[in-house]
């Protein structure tokens, strides 16, 4: 079992690393099941980018493989948004839009982090994240402004994921400490920009923003939805069953 991080830097690495790991694992579930071959390849690429980011971040937080494969669900620090099920393609795109828009705005600022590792990481990851965000924008617009069925599915996908937005901008004591140390940007500084960016994409896709719902919080403290346990069971099964297995 991994120990819970104590210092804000390690905790911050775990939060970002777990976001990337869990979203990467989720998106990789599409591999072989994409709606068409080109989209299948595209989704697999997105997943690989995220797993690469997770590998860097968790590797800096400690033993990356140990953290990914031998931690229990309560020790994961990802936000609730990224662990949400794929649903249909539109629901996956809605989740990717809501997360990578946030991630892109964050990484733009994280490049100025006082922490050398995080600044270097942000410089590298910001470019691929810009692509994720663009692709999610393009698909949201096309599905929203597409057929009656694609519009309905896109709206339902947004509706499912909408209540997890406030958690992205929550600042607890640990994050405040990381902000005060100059390690982490304060997400509240770009919440308005985030909201208007999402609104602009929805408008272009002829989509109404979902009604505000009761926000769900707690992922950063290990209070996860039932979905994460199932995801981890699949992801961790092999290394836990055969702890000494080698490639």
């Amino acid at each position: 079992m991994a120990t819970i991080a104590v210092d804000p830097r390690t905790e911050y690495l775990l939060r970002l690393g777990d976001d990337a790991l869990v979203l990467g694992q989720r998106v990789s579930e599409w591999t072989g099941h994409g709606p068409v071959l080109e989209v299948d390849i595209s989704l697999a690429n997105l997943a690989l980018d995220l797993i690469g980011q997770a590998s860097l971040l968790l590797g800096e937080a400690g033993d990356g493989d140990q953290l990914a494969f031998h931690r229990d669900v309560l020790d994961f620090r990802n936000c609730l948004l990224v662990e949400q099920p794929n649903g249909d393609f539109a629901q996956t795109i809605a989740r990717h839009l809501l997360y990578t828009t946030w991630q892109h705005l964050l990484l733009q600022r994280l490049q100025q982090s006082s922490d050398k590792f995080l600044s270097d990481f942000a410089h590298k990851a910001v470019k691929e994240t810009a692509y994720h965000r663009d692709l999610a924008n393009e698909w949201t617009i096309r599905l929203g402004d597409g057929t009656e069925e694609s519009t309905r599915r896109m709206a339902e996908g947004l509706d499912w994921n909408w209540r997890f937005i406030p958690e992205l901008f929550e600042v607890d004591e640990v994050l405040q400490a990381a902000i005060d140390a100059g390690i982490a940007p304060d997400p509240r500084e770009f919440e308005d920009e985030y909201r208007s960016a999402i609104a602009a994409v929805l408008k272009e896709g002829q989509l109404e923003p979902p009604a505000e719902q009761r926000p769900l919080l707690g992922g950063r403290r290990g209070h996860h939805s039932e979905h994460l346990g199932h995801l981890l069971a699949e992801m961790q099964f092999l290394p836990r069953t055969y702890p000494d297995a080698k490639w």
Partner: protein
Amino acid sequence: MSGHDWPLWEVFVRSKGGLSHRHVGSVHAPDSELALAHARDTYTRRLEGVSIWVVPSAEIVASDPEQAGELFEPAESKIYRHPTFYDIPDEVKHI
């Protein structure tokens, strides 16, 4: 959703500055922007490119294989058209 009615796009990739775009394959996509995205994800995953063109396959005008004789065979006997009588320095690539 189904890709069966998506048009086909021919993909051309420039592998580095100074070289020509080369045909590398094709992708299905609903429009030009997503054709570029699909081409990027399918054909430039391993640092193959610095520039991508996509062209609707339907816009390609092809020569008729039936006419191969009249179009191409006359050149076969004209070896003096080939620049093979020059020594090309090793430093000159891509000729």
